[in-house]
């Protein structure tokens, strides 16, 4: 332990009644439209290991005069001590290991300013081992510089980084073909690489803003032109391209309101809902529907601690805290939206994911899906394709897992409803992280979403939550040996729905499949006894039948519903609701001509309707809307009951039976179907 230091004289005491420096002439607070500061762009530098990322950044800092005094000299001294030629990389690689091995392990951020613009450069490691750090860096960027070694050309990480940029939503890309000095400044080599990289990035729907030949070590076309060696290059320097990009950037138009609730604070008499405006704008007085409970309240106030004036409106990207008019139940993970543009609420997610963890993500293994402030347990239920970063083609063989650094198109099923958007509709609520154990292992963007045509009536003022059971749908399927599903028979009265339903039920049952019939008439004796035959009541009747069918199918049964269900809109609503719950739904149209049905008239209803004893009878004085895209049509007037039921049985079995491998992985009994 070395000794002490030369101590300066002790500072003077402070007199009593101390007050700090105050600034009554403040600049205007958060309400101010724009700060006094310069615009700033975050740029990530990516590319294969050793293609010169750190050197380029060092060069940018040195040329723009952005290095603190003595920093360059200190780095030169350090490289002499290490017995190496000076590297600009020493300016950035701060960790001892980085300096010793001459590689970047983790991302560094460093700022520089040039001609009234401000940039933040994120140096991302190019080594395969450190892709998680590259993702961390790139996800924070608005623009990217993709670096290629002119001599080596596109390498594995060049392509992988390109692929990851497309997934991370960084579409503003400048390509720099570096180390031109090593290929004798040859234009032909540059042209060849330019073609190659443009073609590859094109496959990812990235159109690079510029592809620029440079030499970071020599300082060519970074800030200064090199007319001696690169006289043939008429395009911009790298710095010019960065400056122009900033100028061109236009304000993104705001999307629909997505208010991610972070917390609800009750520190005093107020109840404050705090969260982030992932998209859209919130105003005092707006009716906000909170998903997944769908309760609505108007915004009463917007919190304004430290502000001089009341805040009446806040826009995209901001964090806010609001109080509500109605005392509805809201908690962390809820998403507020305006009634006209609701998000999707579903247990099924189709996504393109990337995986970073050394342990692969396997089918059916649980993983925590984190989207905004939501966190739900999910399972990978299907791997549709794994993307080959080399050729951007789908890997041909069927896959059981997504391995480290792989990108795949998958389906995930959540244990409770997730509120989300398709990534191209609202980016912030269309992307998620996947966490296994305490660590984030990957992430993904949501590739498609089925938006509801209209919002079901929202409930207010009740304390409803979603209760989660411990038995998952997958575990149930494993136990019963098949999945639950809804077989929705629709058709005129007398078309043969009940006959088919009864026959199908016994055939399924004999094969060990748990099933039941949901009959429209039976429902009207109990659950729907309060409903008549108006359009509204018919819609409500179908909604209730659909909800009951869903509950039974979720518990593992194959539900055969037998209802006339004359309106497309009502049937579609049930289909969407089932898909949102991650359930199979099959619409089966029982097609028989009106005359045949009336002739059969098993319950004498047509006769009564013709006599005017019944009003609003489908086919007589109320329309039947034929299904536009049924999953199956049974022509009961043309084929025998056995033929119809046989075809239907085949269809249902294909829908609910587990595949061989699912049965093994589910590990339950059953399976003897």
């Amino acid at each position, binding site marked *: 332990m*070395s000794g002490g230091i030369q101590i300066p004289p002790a500072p003077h005491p402070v007199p009593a009644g101390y007050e700090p*420096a105050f600034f009554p002439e403040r600049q205007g607070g958060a309400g101010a439209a724009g700060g006094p500061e310069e615009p700033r762009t975050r740029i990530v530098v990516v590319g294969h290991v050793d293609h010169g990322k750190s050197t380029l950044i060092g060069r940018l800092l040195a040329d723009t005069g952005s290095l603190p005094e003595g920093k360059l000299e200190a780095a030169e001294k350090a490289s002499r001590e290490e017995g190496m030629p000076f590297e600009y990389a020493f300016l950035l690689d701060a*960790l001892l290991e980085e300096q010793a091995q001459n590689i970047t392990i983790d991302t560094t951020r460093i700022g520089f300013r040039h001609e009234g613009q401000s940039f933040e450069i994120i140096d991302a490691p190019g080594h395969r081992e450190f892709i998680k750090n590259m993702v961390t860096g790139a996800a924070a960027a608005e623009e990217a510089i993709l670096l290629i070694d002119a001599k080596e050309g596109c390498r594995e990480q060049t392509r992988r980084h390109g692929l990851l940029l497309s997934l991370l939503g960084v579409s503003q890309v400048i390509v720099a073909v570096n180390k031109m000095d090593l290929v004798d400044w040859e234009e032909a080599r540059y042209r060849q690489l330019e073609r190659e990289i443009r073609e590859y990035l094109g496959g990812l729907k990235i159109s690079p803003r510029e592809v620029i030949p440079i030499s970071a070590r020599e300082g060519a076309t970074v800030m200064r032109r090199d007319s001696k060696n690169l006289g043939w290059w008429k395009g911009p320097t790298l710095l010019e391209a960065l400056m122009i990009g900033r100028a061109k950037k236009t304000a993104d138009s705001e999307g629909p309101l997505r208010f991610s609730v972070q917390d609800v604070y009750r520190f005093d008499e107020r109840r404050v809902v705090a969260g982030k405006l992932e998209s859209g704008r919130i105003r005092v007085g707006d009716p906000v529907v909170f998903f997944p409970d769908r309760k609505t309240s108007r915004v009463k106030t917007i919190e304004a601690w430290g502000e001089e004036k009341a805040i009446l409106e806040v826009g995209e990207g901001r964090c806010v805290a609001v109080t509500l008019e109605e005392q509805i139940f809201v908690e962390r993970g809820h998403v507020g939206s305006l009634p006209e543009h609701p998000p999707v609420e579903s247990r099924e997610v189709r996504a393109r994911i990337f995986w970073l963890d050394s342990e692969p993500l396997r089918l059916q293994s649980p993983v925590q899906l984190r989207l905004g402030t939501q966190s739900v347990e999910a399972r990978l239920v299907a791997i549709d394709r794994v993307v080959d970063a080399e050729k951007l083609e789908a890997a041909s063989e069927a896959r059981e897992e997504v391995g480290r650094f792989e990108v795949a198109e998958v389906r995930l099923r959540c244990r409770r409803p997730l509120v989300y958007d398709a990534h191209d509709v609202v980016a912030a609520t269309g992307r998620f992280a996947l966490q296994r154990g305490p660590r984030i292992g990957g992430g993904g963007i949501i590739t498609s979403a089925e938006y509801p045509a209209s919002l079901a009536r929202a409930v207010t003022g009740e304390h409803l939550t979603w209760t989660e059971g411990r038995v998952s749908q997958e575990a149930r399927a494993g136990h019963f040996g098949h999945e639950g599903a809804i077989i929705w028979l629709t058709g005129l009265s007398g078309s043969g729905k009940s006959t088919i339903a009864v026959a199908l039920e016994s055939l399924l049952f004999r094969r060990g499949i748990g099933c039941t019939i949901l009959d429209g008439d039976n429902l009207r004796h109990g659950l729907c006894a309060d409903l008549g035959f108006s359009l509204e009541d018919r819609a409500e009747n179908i909604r209730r039948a659909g909800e009951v069918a869903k509950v039974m199918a979720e518990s593992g049964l194959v539900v055969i519903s037998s209802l006339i269900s004359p309106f497309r809109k009502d049937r579609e609503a049930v289909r969407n609701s089932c898909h949102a719950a991650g359930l199979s739904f099959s619409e089966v149209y029982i097609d028989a001509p009106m005359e045949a049905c009336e002739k059969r008239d098993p319950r004498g209803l047509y006769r009564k309707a013709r006599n005017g004893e019944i009003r609003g009878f489908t086919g007589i004085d109320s329309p039947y809307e034929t299904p536009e895209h049924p999953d199956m049509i049974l022509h009961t007037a043309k084929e025998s009951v056995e033929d119809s039921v046989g075809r239907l049985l085949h269809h249902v079995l294909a829908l609910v039976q587990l595949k061989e491998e699912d049965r093994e992985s589910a590990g339950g009994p059953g399976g003897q179907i």
Partner: protein
Amino acid sequence: MSYLQHLEDQSIYIFREAFANFKNIAMPWSMGKDSNTLIWLAKKAFAGKIPFPLVHIDTTYEFPEMLAFREWARKHYEIDLIVIINEEARKRGVGYETHDPVTVTHELKSAALQQSLGKYKWDALVTGIRRDEDSTRAKERYFSPRTADNEWEYRDQPPEFWGQFTTAVKPGEHVRVQPLLDWTELDVWEYVRREGIPIPKMYFAQNGRRYRSLGCWPITKSIESSVETLEGIVAELKTTKTSERAGRAQDHHERNAMQKLRAKGFL
């Protein structure tokens, strides 16, 4: 949206995520400009009430004005303040008079913090560190896990993207939550100016010198400056080529001193 506004919102988001995910948070607080910016942001994040304690690690080498500021702020902001002194090390005679700055900093700051982590069982500490202060801080995460020994495993940091942070810790471990990570020194001053945040007077020139960064008085040097206003500080920073912590002796005691200090728990 202005960049400063983006930074404010990001910091508020981080504060709230920390509070929602951890059970027992504390915020080390040193009364400097960054610390006071943190208080201001926390007030905004939690609608005027900071729902966790602030911790001042008193090295016993504090500038008198900083202690006066501490007592003023305690009342002004209605904060729950815990003051910690490593009495054991002081009794052993650890001090700048007899020991080198790296040792004293480690004992009176990092070790003091380590002791109180054991005592109070904090699972998250909100710090005011910024990437532009030092090249190892430049490699930090917003939510940065520390082992039970208060060590930073910088070789294998968890990924962090899209506002999803590391929020799970094993017993004894904690997470450093760093809302100011993306801010620069200039951003802090622009924000102090925009918001009118009260700060110690030592940042302004008296007799031709002012402090740019504040630490223990025996090892903190003032700089030559005649600046007496926030506008002046902003203007001065736009032209300076000296680094912010140039006046902090412990950083420069030996090569890579900061990395060694930080790996062992220094903020």
